[in-house]
């Protein structure tokens, strides 16, 4: 089976390609990138005026399967991913039960093969039940093919456990992902601590809680020689610490979410729980530090932290509502609107942070249009204007702080292993 994506603007940062070209896909793999490609019997899709790039890789999302299917499941999560231009998503282990053993990793992978329409990378828990007490069977899970480990949602407060985990996985070559917020400083906190929380009377989550947590992780990584990845960086202090650590040669990588690159605590109202997320939406100076950190390479990748919740869970008093919202279907539009259309980033830089960079962080084969690579491809229109209407989302979670906002940039086609799984916003496959 052959397919030619004809006349698009091909951006493949891994190979330094940024020009109008055709892409030939053959038997699920990239066969050729070049001008005026012809191939006998090939289906031709004219993508003139659109961008053709490696499919996006999300290093951080919550799939909610097993056990929390009221929020999201394998089918809706991968559909939402495909709709947003993602071809690989990485699911966090905070499910019911927690993904902390080989059998659960295998189970998820099997489910992904049965009903998933994108690739799914599994992140295993650092500690049994994510309780922060005993190490989970990390080696077993490595053999089952986990991408990385994390007790996401919970900072591993026990420094000894964190150090041991980091040390233990060195021979397996895995990275530990840290949700870095010191618990005692953020417990009961519901938003960024600042002038806005002061007048709303809401307990804040001070930025220093993240700075301290990141500092510890970096120091332990340095001491051990382990590989750490800081999830959803949100404070200027953390960015500066990571910048210094990278300069010193510590093996640290980091991600930032579209919302921490674009929204501030100014939009937080107590009647809109869609604005509740951890780490919280912060003040403008922090947002600017995120943009700068992503630009200069301190922060490697953009990750969605797609955190679906059922309506009835989010529909309640702010302090009782769970944190997080869906992000897969807004990520590209948000990033292009706030980074590319503002002139801060080139298209190639944006694509890099969503493809080659996350692949490099987790040593994945995807994220490139190299000949022979799996044909995971996104075609997007960087200038398509649309208004966010969560009713049109594939995810089950219809709450987003972007509701009603105008965004510029949208995926129009997604291919996984050469198969078209989304076209013009419609899901076109029921499995891979």
């Amino acid at each position, binding site marked *: 089976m052959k397919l030619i994506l004809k006349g698009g603007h091909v951006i493949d940062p891994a190979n330094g390609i940024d020009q109008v070209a055709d892409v030939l896909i053959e038997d699920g793999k990239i066969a050729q990138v070049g001008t005026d490609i012809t191939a006998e019997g090939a289906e031709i899709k004219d993508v003139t005026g659109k961008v053709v790039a490696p499919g996006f890789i999300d290093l951080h999302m919550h799939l909610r399967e097993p056990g929390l299917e009221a929020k999201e499941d394998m089918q809706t999560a991968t559909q939402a991913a495909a709709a947003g231009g993602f071809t690989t998503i990485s699911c966090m282990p905070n499910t019911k039960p927690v993904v902390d053993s080989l059998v659960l990793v295998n189970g998820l992978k099997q489910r992904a093969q049965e009903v998933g329409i994108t690739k799914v990378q599994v992140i295993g828990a650092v500690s049994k039940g994510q309780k922060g007490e005993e190490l989970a069977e990390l080696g077993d899970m490595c053999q089952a093919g986990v991408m990385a480990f994390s007790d996401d949602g919970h900072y591993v407060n026990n420094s000894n456990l964190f150090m041991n985990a980091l040390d233990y996985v060195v021979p397996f070559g895995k990275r530990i992902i840290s949700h870095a917020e010191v618990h005692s400083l953020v417990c009961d906190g519901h938003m960024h601590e600042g002038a806005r929380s002061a007048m709303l009377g809401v307990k804040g989550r001070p930025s220093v809680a993240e700075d301290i947590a990141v500092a510890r992780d970096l120091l332990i990584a340095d001491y051990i020689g382990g590989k750490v990845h800081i999830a959803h960086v949100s404070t200027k202090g953390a960015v500066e610490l990571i910048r210094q650590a990278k300069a010193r040669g510590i093996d640290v990588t980091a991600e930032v979410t579209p919302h921490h690159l674009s929204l501030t605590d100014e939009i937080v109202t107590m009647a809109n729980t869609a604005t509740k997320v951890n780490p919280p939406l912060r003040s403008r100076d922090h947002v600017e530090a995120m943009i700068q950190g992503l630009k200069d390479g301190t922060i490697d990748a953009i990750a969605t932290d797609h955190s679906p919740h059922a309506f009835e869970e989010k529909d*309640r008093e702010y302090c009782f509502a769970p944190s997080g919202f869906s992000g897969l279907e807004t990520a590209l539009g948000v990033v292009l609107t706030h980074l590319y259309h503002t002139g801060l980033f080139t298209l190639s830089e944006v694509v890099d942070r969503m493809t080659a960079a996350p692949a490099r962080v987790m040593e994945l084969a995807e994220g490139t249009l190299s000949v022979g690579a799996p044909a995971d491809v996104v075609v997007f229109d960087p200038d398509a204007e649309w208004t966010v209407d969560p009713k049109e989302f594939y995810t089950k979670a219809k709450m987003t702080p972007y509701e009603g906002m105008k965004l510029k940039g949208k995926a129009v086609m997604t291919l996984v292993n050469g198969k078209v799984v989304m076209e013009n916003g419609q899901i076109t496959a029921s499995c891979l």
Partner: protein
Amino acid sequence: MDKSKISLRNKHILDLEYLSAEEIDLILNTAKEMKKLVGRDIKKVPALRGKSIVNLFFEPSTRTRTSFELAGKYLGADVVNITTSSSSVVKGESLRDTLYTIEAMGTDIIVMRHKAEGAAEYASQIVSSRIINAGDGAHAHPSQALLDLFTIRQYKGDVAGKKVAILGDILHSRVARSDIWGLRKLGAEVHLAGPRTLMPRYIAEQEGVYVHDRVEDAIDQADVINVLRIQLERQKTGLFPSPREYARIFGLNKDRLALAKPDALVLHPGPMNRGLEISPDISYCDQSAIQEQVKNGLSVRMALLFLVLMGGKNIEADS
């Protein structure tokens, strides 16, 4: 704006943040009329006859709930009280469903107190009944702030240009936050003081709000001193070392009161911990308007209920 056009009819009263100076003025002027009514032998008028008010309290309250209840009854409305300890959480019924139930009974106004910040605002988006916020967590307590403003006006004539000190636990105080909005809208200067652990960080970024480490600096030449209640359980969570130390360093006593203007007014939203945040001799001294605040609270709440349901019509038009 043409003053006669200002109306609160059908509005939710969520916080003073959302009221204009003119609207606050209308409430305070209406409350003045109400106060005359309360002074009468026969207090009841039929202004709100046929209207129904539900006091929905998820937190214990004596003065606010009683005050709203009598306010409604003096104006002829039917008033029902629902007091429940965070019932929606305990019983598993969501706040949305509780509100739907009350709305379905034809309730015109829901007076609501809840421990969650923003609960009243959330309610206002759900039901057609009008919501009056009687306290939402540490966020807002508009009727208390309005009665504070009313009391300041009564004794000081005007709020504009006055130096108002607010002392104590600002961090957990919905009264302080609503006072700040109201005082600023009417042109007063707000000076906050208390232990730094009970002061919201970054609150000094609010325009016209000054934060002092020493209560003496806040009290200095003040026209009004509002003393907030210190909840003793805060001590257990490590926010201040002991009640004794609090009283000595941060409490309002005679010596500290002497730093204010000679005719400075002392307010307290109640209930007081006499001997802790306020010394017993000051609680009922000549400068204290604490009892008057309670009286004024009734008038202000009558004004709120009346204005929300009837707009600016003559109070006794139907009588």
